[in-house]
């Protein structure tokens, strides 16, 4: 890296982050929605912003019998619809000749040999060896095949100052055992430093802002511990159900594996981690993994029953529309035992967080779409205001809104105007959209650029993934393998979850934040 900086002096100081290297991006599963809606528009938007290194080539690898032309036309059509920056003909026409399609079965060894030949030919044409980025966006059952064939074709090897990296989409395994197996396969093919396990939540502006909020503002960090914080809630609510055939995947996964194992435990680790020694990828990830490793394990059915609530929604009403219950949804087993909602009490056994519960909830068919983290501070001693009408109001709450309406708010108590001493909570509110009119880059833009620049800070490391699975596996085992499994609760679609989840908090004198 250092050698390269010297040989291109113009990179120096131009932007305040690692520079992305030109490369060829090979996308496995290129005919899918992710490629068309997210990945290629992200690369296009990077080009619009002048961030994409010149000469980036994109090769779509998939089974369908498509031509380069047909592939490009489909990408262009979608880019017109979904691109954050609109669609500029001239820029697209500059990018499009660098996009091609490579048809092959994922298990077909010859397909990888011809891919390698194609990449070598491109290198030869350019007169130099190039970097290679393999993005595995296929269905998870092909991950093994793709990785093993990449290795066999020699495509995962670093060559004379050129890197070869892999991005693996979620789900990264379905259990601890499968994640460990996949990690073995990935690390048998690529070195850990070249492996980028993507979690698009970490590419979101507000998720990145958590560290800035905590460590660049002197007022928060001294209060960020068991002395001052009563509890923390992390909510990821989704008003959609199983539209568009997503029931087929979701019914095999469930809320815990689909959302908690990755996105929500990542958010939790950002909120709870100790200050890293530096902002290097491993500096940050070392601290995050300590949090996940410190999660108290709910490893018996009794503990799971006490600390985890799973539920399915019944038919109900959202935004004035009747919606079916979970078991009546398209492509969902009518006798499904998969949770579409889960609420957990997490305990982090560290000096900082001893005794502070982290309540995490995620579910489908809740009243609205919202992801947020709320930090509930302890109440003040009730010696001064307990005689005031209404008593002491609620404690302070700091809310970090991840999506939509990204921002931060702080609830505090204020005296109502008047001669008597009455208090009401008021809210100080920061909205990204109000303060910064410029739209943030999409998460995939940031993450693709980081990968090209060799910065893995916003990607999950092997040990993080495995520790998160260890936590989730214990709960799954209690649900599906014990003789007396904790029950499946129910709630009407459009509600904020089952009463059992409310009781989990009310038993401790707390309640879920109303969003």
């Amino acid at each position, binding site marked *: 890296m250092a050698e390269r900086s010297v040989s*291109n002096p113009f*990179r120096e100081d131009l932007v305040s982050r690692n520079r992305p290297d*030109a490369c060829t991006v090979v996308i496995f599963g290129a005919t899918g929605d992710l490629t068309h809606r997210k990945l290629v528009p992200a690369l296009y938007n990077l080009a619009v912003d*002048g961030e994409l290194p010149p000469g980036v080539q994109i090769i779509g690898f998939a089974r369908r019998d498509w031509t380069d032309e047909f592939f490009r036309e489909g990408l262009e059509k979608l880019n017109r619809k979904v691109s954050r920056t609109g669609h500029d003909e001239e*820029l697209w026409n500059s990018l499009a000749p660098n996009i091609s399609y490579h048809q092959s079965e994922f298990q077909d060894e010859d397909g990888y040999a011809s891919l390698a030949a194609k990449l070598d030919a491109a290198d030869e*044409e350019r007169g130099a060896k190039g970097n290679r980025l393999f993005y595995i966006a296929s269905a998870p059952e092909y991950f093994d095949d793709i990785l093993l064939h990449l290795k066999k074709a020699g495509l995962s090897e670093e060559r004379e100052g050129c890197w070869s990296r892999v991005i693996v989409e979620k789900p990264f395994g379905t259990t601890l055992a499968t994640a460990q197996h996949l990690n073995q396969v990935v690390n048998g093919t690529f070195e850990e430093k070249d492996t980028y396990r993507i979690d698009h939540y970490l590419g979101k502006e507000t998720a990145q802002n958590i560290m800035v909020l905590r460590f660049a503002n002197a007022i928060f960090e001294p209060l960020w511990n068991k002395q001052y914080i009563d509890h923390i809630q992390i909510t990821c609510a989704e008003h959609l159900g199983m539209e568009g055939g997503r029931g087929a995947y979701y019914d095999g996964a469930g809320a815990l594996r689909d959302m908690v194992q990755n996105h929500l435990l990542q958010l939790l680790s950002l909120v709870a981690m100790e200050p890293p020694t530096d902002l290097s990828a491993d500096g940050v990830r070392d601290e995050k993994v300590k949090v996940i490793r410190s999660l108290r394990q709910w490893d018996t059915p009794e503990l799971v029953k006490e600390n985890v609530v799973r539920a399915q929604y019944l038919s109900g009403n959202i935004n004035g529309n009747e919606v079916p219950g979970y078991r009546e949804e398209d492509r969902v087993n009518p006798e499904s035992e998969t949770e579409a909602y889960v609420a957990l009490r997490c305990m982090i056994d560290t000096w900082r967080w001893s005794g502070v519960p982290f309540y995490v909830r995620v579910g489908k068919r809740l009243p609205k779409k919202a992801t947020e983290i709320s930090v509930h501070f302890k109440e003040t001693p009730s010696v001064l205001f307990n005689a005031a009408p209404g008593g002491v109001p609620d404690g302070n709450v700091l809310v970090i809104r991840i999506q939509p309406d990204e921002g931060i708010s702080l609830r505090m108590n204020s005296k109502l105007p008047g001669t008597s001493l009455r208090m009401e909570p008021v809210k100080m509110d920061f909205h990204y959209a109000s*303060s910064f*009119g*410029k739209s943030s880059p999409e998460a995939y833009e940031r993450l693709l650029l980081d990968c090209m620049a060799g910065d893995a800070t916003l990607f999950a490391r092997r040990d993080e993934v495995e520790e998160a699975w260890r936590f989730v596996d214990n709960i799954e085992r209690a649900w599906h393998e014990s003789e007396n499994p904790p029950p499946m609760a129910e709630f009407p679609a459009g509600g904020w979850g089952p009463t059992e989840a409310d009781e989990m908090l009310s038993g401790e004198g707390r309640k879920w934040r109303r969003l």
Partner: protein
Amino acid sequence: MEEALAMGVELSSAGLGRAVEVAAIDGELKKLWEADDASTNASLMNFLIYTEDPSQLTANSETILSLTQENACRALLIAMDREAPEPSIEAYITAHCHLAHGKKSICSEQVSFLLKGKSLGRLRNTVFAHLNSDLPLVFWWQNELSDLFEEGLYRLVDRLIFDSSTWADPTAGFERIVAAREDTGQSMITQDLSWTRSYFFRLATAGLFDDPAAKKSFSAINKVKIVAQKEQRTAALLLLAWVVELSGWKLLLKNGDSFELSSAEGNLIEASIEWNEDGAPLSELSFFSPDCEIKITRERGNPHLCQSLCTDGHCLYFSGPADADAPADLVASQLSRGGKNSLFLRVLPQFFELL
């Protein structure tokens, strides 16, 4: 987003909003917000545009309308008519509102002043009195730096924006900027729009030299050419200074707008700036070596840069974004990037040599 909404304000024909007494500005602003519950008053900074050309006041209000789409601020517009015989002051208030993500109406308030007559200290005091507390002051000084650019004023400034291409004597102007930075303990961030104007040229250069063939040819570069409009001389020289500084080259000889440079290895490099009034403000930056030719060009009015890299008769072509032309758009892109602008400061000594 494109549509700006006048909020509870009857716009005057000058587009500056409602005329108010200076002493009543705060009260009138308060009334403005009380009259409208549906809008949000947002502010990230105090953004001040100062001009000594009073006819610019209305145009500057239009600039604020555009800038506030992405930069919520308390906008202060100050125009000074120094030739007026009697001192007087006029003030106007208005708000610029934009729909954020098609939903919420986000508004920035604007206070405009027309100061007439000669009275030192009035500019500084007007600024003092109308800043939103705790927010940084971004001060865009249009055209020449006059004697009103003095320590008492610039000590207030967090970020100073100027356009050296509008200065009759850039050397004198930059000397004052350097002195002002020294006076403020180097804390004032300075941003020259002539430097901003070459941002995407610099980004494209960096990108093209990532190519292995270009990298290989770097040490053999023997010629650099920049083409620009004559009035963008400082932009062209700043761009050349950036090339020279980062390449580690030394200036040997200066002959008008032609320069002889030497590389660290002792190779001679010819650099020239050519003028093309029909082209874009900056229309070309090219590097030549025996084996490689790198060219970044822009046609007038084209929002894209054409980039080409030719080695051994084989050429690669790319398109990329180009810098804005209008000063207001350049200011907007500067604001969106933020930062301390340290590379600009690093390039300045080289620029002074070339100037």
